[in-house]
């Protein structure tokens, strides 16, 4: 039998309801603008990069850490890959992804060394590497924006690799192939978290580090996997960002770190570790994207976006916290009664 109470207690379900209600409201107020295939494609397209980032941030949050360096990793991967492609003249999209992934992995492992081996606090380490990577990129590699179409043909052409194209009011609307990358990575992360020993280890470390260690989980190895994998994801996201935006701008991406973490938290992941799901994270990303791109269709001016997102975060984290307080109060009462 379906347990309704348990269903309603899950943050994924609550955020799903919020998303449905919001979409229904927008659809009723402004059906012609919202309920169109081009608009759906636009929303999905806006989800891709932040979605890939969010998958990485989810893993880190579940393990009880916090990573703010992934935007710096992403832009380093994109910019350096573009430079290598231009220098070598090997103009290939798979190469771009391979390079981006490798650079991301390497930079992620730098985080892993500080966090895993030296046991330094994750926020502080990634704060350091955020500045280190971005400063190094801008100083040593360059600070000039590169338009992909001016220096590459294949790489720049990937902007037009669409999987579906439909006619729209003006021209046509398309869904970019990189949505498949997001879905593939989401499946991968879901599988790792749910069905592998590694996934168990990630949840265990975030739930109670000491208990996980005593239970025999190798914490250092798990942290190397987490931060290396997050770097890899960031590198891939960086390449996708470049393809979607048709350029490698070394000043872009950095500054989005807290927004991504907000999306993951909205999706039910606990910043204290041990809790969080892929489905919730994707819903959180979708909700934030709909708010920032479609709230205006509800007649709410765009200036209200951040206010609404902030209020949602506080409600989203406040309810579980208050529930926890009430449970504790009840327990205390029970103990008192005995």
């Amino acid at each position, binding site marked *: 039998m379906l347990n309704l109470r348990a269903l309603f207690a899950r943050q994924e379900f609550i955020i799903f309801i919020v998303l449905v209600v919001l979409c229904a409201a927008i659809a009723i107020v402004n059906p012609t603008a919202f309920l169109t295939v081009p608009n759906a494609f636009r929303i999905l397209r806006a989800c891709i990069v932040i979605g890939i980032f969010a998958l990485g941030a989810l893993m880190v949050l579940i393990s009880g850490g916090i990573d703010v360096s992934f935007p710096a990793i992403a832009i380093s991967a994109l910019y350096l890959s573009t430079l290598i492609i231009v220098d070598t003249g090997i103009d290939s999209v798979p190469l771009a992804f391979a390079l981006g992934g490798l650079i991301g992995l390497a930079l992620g492992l730098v985080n892993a060394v500080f966090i895993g081996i030296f046991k330094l606090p994750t926020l502080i380490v990634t704060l350091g590497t955020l500045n280190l990577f971005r400063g190094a990129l*801008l100083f040593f590699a360059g600070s000039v924006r590169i338009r992909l179409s001016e220096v590459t043909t294949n790489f720049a052409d990937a902007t037009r690799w669409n999987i579906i194209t439909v006619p729209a009011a003006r021209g046509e609307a398309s869904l970019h192939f990189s949505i498949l990358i997001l879905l593939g990575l989401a499946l991968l992360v879901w599988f790792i978290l749910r069905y592998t020993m590694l996934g168990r280890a990630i949840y265990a470390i975030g739930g109670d580090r000491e208990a996980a260690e005593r239970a025999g989980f190798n914490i250092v190895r798990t942290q190397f996997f987490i931060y290396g994998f997050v770097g890899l994801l960031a590198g891939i996201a960086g390449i996708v960002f470049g393809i979607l935006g048709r350029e490698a701008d070394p000043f872009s991406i950095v*500054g989005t770190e807290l927004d991504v973490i*907000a999306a993951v938290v909205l999706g039910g992941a606990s910043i204290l570790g041990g809790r969080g799901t892929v489905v919730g994270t994707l819903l959180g990303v979708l909700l934030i994207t709909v708010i920032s791109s479609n709230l205006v269709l509800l007649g709410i001016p765009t200036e209200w976006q*951040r206010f*609404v997102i902030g*209020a949602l975060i506080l409600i989203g984290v406040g309810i579980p916290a208050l529930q926890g307080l009430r449970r504790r109060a009840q327990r205390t009462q029970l103990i008192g009664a005995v």
Partner: protein
Amino acid sequence: MANVQVSPTKLKNADAPRLSLDSLIPRDTSIIRLLVITIVLFVVFSLLKPATFPTPINLQSMAFQMSEIGILAIAVALTMISGGIDLSINATANLTAIAVASVITALAPAANTDAGTAATAVTLAILVGLAVGLICGLVNGSLVAYANIPPILATLGTLTLFTGIGTVVTEGAAIFAQERLAEVGNGVIFEIPVPLIIFLLVAVGVHFLLSKSRFGFELYMVGTNPQASRFSGINNRSVLLRTYIISGVLSALAGIVILGRTNAARIDFGDSYVLLAIMICVLGGIDPAGGFGRIIGVVLAVFALQLLSTGLNQVFFDNPGANFFRQFAWGATLLLVLLLNYFSARARQRKTSAR
């Protein structure tokens, strides 16, 4: 509570000299190390750039630059000592600046308003600004202390919320302060920049608050071990609430200084200040896990970072990328200091266990 575990570092922290009367004398190693780094930076850059670095004009301009971030760093430091963090400092500062600029624009709009009216308007505006900071801090403190939301989450939410309010109020545009706060942001008293005086007054005030008052003692207790402090009769919630209120008011003060210097209030000013302030705190020896750290360390870290920034700017004068090398150097310094602390802690541990 037999199973309350106290880690070795926490025990060591309890013995640290922070509560002693002569706590002005830096005795713990991280502060001495910072002092040495600061002096070395000054000497090195003075030798590299003797004509431009150790000059009164340069010192003055450095003092102007570091004061606002210094005040913000002290705001973060307080919350970090309590075991939390405040990500909303910059949003609070910008919201304050918007409120102050709005009040000034409303009460003393034209440049030819008479001096008396203008003075009243500015005084009222500053009071309103500090009240905004107090309210922001109250919201943070309530969320952390009474709703039990982890500080990093609560202030991530309010960061977004305050930025949202500021965006709604200003519709994203800048509001100007009619040059009426220029004395606060750009003025000098005996050649000493007013922002620096404000920063140092804040530093001295908070230092004594932490080392001499009952609140300071309780703050360290809550940060070291909230459970133990509760069982020893400290009202954790009230301590946390007051901590975030002070953080909010200090952020508001920084916002007023920023407004004075730039004459324009914008909700998206200084986005990088939040992470920079946290970095300064860690460099200054504030333990992100709470319970340990002193304001003098934060002040020294502000000095050191400013010397590094200005020095590198002058050394790389011909290179347009000087700003970026500065960011690189900040990151590298933070990681190096973390490593230094790690290895010196391990060496200490080994010495202790050998005994």
